[in-house]
């Protein structure tokens, strides 16, 4: 029993120390293992008996071996503290990518918790059918104003049209909405023709627009916001009858958050037959174009001339909904392209004209350098998508032309300034270790420009390169120039090299 058990314990304890030694930095590992194995030999001799196996003794020896873990961990921790200095982290490529990732994470998080951004980022909720336009009086200079009298809408709908195959009408007005026991609240209520939602192709949650069960009451669709705010997300509201103004209406559905992108914000919409719409009221007309009318569209607009029975004519504009329902991608892609085109006006986009003196970096260094540049651009593009949306829709829960404008402006400037930063940052990074050059020093004087050179010299803290930036560009020294430091300079940078 004794020799076998003793051998098993010895092998286990030596193996344990061998395994733990992997934690020790490679340079110290051999000596560390030698010391612990020697100490183990002495501990075993002191604790175990020659006569027979003692479990207490083996437990004591194993406890001694367990202490090796703390020792190895201490050495590992010490090597890390020694190896990664703040100066090395600061200005490094990882440091730069870390901050970009942090900004992206923050903007993505805000985008996910903001109701406005969330609604904007899901175009399937508000995308309307194609070939729809909003008809507006050409003499009215304000965009998206209610300009069409209901009588004209009825006349258009009654007559056979060559360019349009369907029309719908709506108008918005303030009315009292009864919310149960607490009486009513004044809300914006849209009076819409029965076919409007079907014409737009908007899906309504938890409801059937064709549902006429319950009698002759008008049907009402609530906005998601109104359902939350005024009815506390009551799941049993569908099918119940409430009072809106002078009407008893049956709630038939809830419109998804952000679904309504047409002019005029509303908290609820009453579906009314055309004959029930009040006379004299001006509103909006939505029309569906035939293919022949579609070909007349230019820049999202079409001019419409209406000839009346008395021979007079009247001009209207047909305005496409595309701008309102394209979602953030349209603005995003447009601003990225615009800022890319505008970038040369701010800075030279060339990175390759920075000559590397007589030294040529290896192809792997070049690949890493380009991969780093690509990484920065990818992060920037992702930030440009989320951050302007956060700014534009943080306080707004639905689309508005103002928010869309803010989105466009922020997207453009963030993208433009971001591209500029990416290029300038890349130019100031050591081609060997990608760390930012630092410690600028003035070299020479302007009077010696033609005999030597004057300008600013920046240094890579890893000791790989110097960047010479001419103070006065000349024909022989126009662009900044990298100067490679050979290994004879290493003694100056001991302890800071990462290359």
């Amino acid at each position, binding site marked *: 029993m004794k020799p076998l058990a003793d051998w098993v314990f010895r092998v286990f304890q030596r193996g344990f120390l061998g395994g733990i030694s992997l934690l020790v930095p490679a340079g110290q590992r051999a000596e560390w293992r030698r010391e612990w194995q020697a*100490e183990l030999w002495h501990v075993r001799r002191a604790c175990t008996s020659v006569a027979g196996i003692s479990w207490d003794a083996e437990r004591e020896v194993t*406890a001694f071996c367990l202490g090796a873990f703390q020792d190895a961990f201490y050495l590992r921790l010490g090597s890390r503290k020694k190896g990664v200095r703040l100066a090395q982290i600061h200005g490094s490529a990882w440091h730069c990518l870390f901050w970009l990732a942090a900004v992206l994470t923050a903007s993505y998080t805000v985008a996910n918790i903001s109701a406005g951004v969330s609604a904007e980022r899901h175009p399937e909720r508000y995308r309307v059918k194609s070939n729809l336009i909003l008809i507006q009086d050409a003499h009215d200079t304000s965009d998206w104003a209610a300009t069409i009298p209901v009588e004209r809408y009825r006349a258009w709908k009654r007559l056979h049209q060559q360019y349009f195959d369907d029309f719908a009408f709506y108008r918005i007005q303030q009315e009292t909405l009864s919310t149960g026991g607490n009486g009513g609240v004044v809300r914006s209520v849209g009076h819409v023709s029965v076919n409007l939602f079907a014409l737009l192709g908007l899906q309504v949650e938890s409801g059937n627009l064709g549902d006429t069960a319950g009698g002759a009451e008008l049907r009402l669709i609530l906005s998601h916001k109104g359902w939350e705010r005024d009815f506390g997300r009551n799941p049993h509201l569908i099918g119940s009858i409430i009072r809106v103004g002078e009407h008893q209406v049956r709630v038939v559905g809830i419109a998804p958050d952000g679904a309504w992108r047409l002019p005029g914000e509303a908290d609820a919409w009453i579906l009314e037959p055309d004959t029930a719409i009040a006379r004299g009221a001006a509103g909006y007309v939505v029309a569906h174009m035939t293919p022949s009318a579609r070909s007349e569209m230019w820049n999202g607009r079409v001019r419409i001339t209406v000839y009346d029975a008395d021979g007079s004519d009247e001009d209207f504009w047909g305005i496409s909904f595309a701008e309102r329902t394209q979602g953030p991608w349209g603005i995003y892609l447009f601003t990225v392209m615009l800022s890319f085109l505008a970038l040369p006006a701010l800075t030279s986009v060339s990175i390759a004209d920075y000559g590397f003196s007589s030294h040529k970096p290896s192809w792997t260094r070049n690949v890493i350098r380009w991969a780093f540049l690509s990484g920065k651009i990818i992060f920037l593009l992702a930030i440009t998508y989320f951050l302007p949306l956060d700014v534009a829709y943080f306080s707004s829960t639905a689309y508005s032309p103002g928010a869309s404008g803010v989105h466009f402006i922020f997207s453009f400037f963030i993208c433009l300034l971001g591209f500029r930063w990416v290029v300038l940052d890349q130019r100031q990074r050591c081609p060997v270790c990608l760390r930012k050059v630092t410690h600028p020093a003035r070299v020479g004087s302007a009077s010696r420009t033609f005999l030597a050179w004057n300008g600013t010299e920046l240094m890579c803290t890893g000791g790989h390169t110097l960047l010479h930036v001419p103070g006065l560009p000349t024909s022989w020294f126009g662009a900044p120039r990298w100067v490679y430091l050979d290994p004879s300079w290493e003694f100056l940078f001991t302890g800071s090299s990462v290359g």
Partner: protein
Amino acid sequence: MASETKLSHTAAMILQAIDAGFVYGFGVMEMTGLPSGTVYPALRRLERDELIRSQWERQSIADAEQRPARKYYKLTVAGRATLDASRRRYPLLERLIPTEEAKSL
């Protein structure tokens, strides 16, 4: 390392044990009663701070005695000064681990 360096009681005990002639890790453990997980990292720290220095035993001596060579620890000048300061700070240190000179008195 300045002589005013203040050590913890544990580190002072280890320094005192080395001064008392317990010059390898297991010996320090036996003398102080501290576990290996405390003694060996403390030895590394003391060596890093140049209060002790280590030296491997000659292989020929170990071979003659048919055992592996051991790593011995010895106080440096700075370590001795620090130990003197620690003795003033912890008066019972010498009584816990008496040195050879103290024993002979």
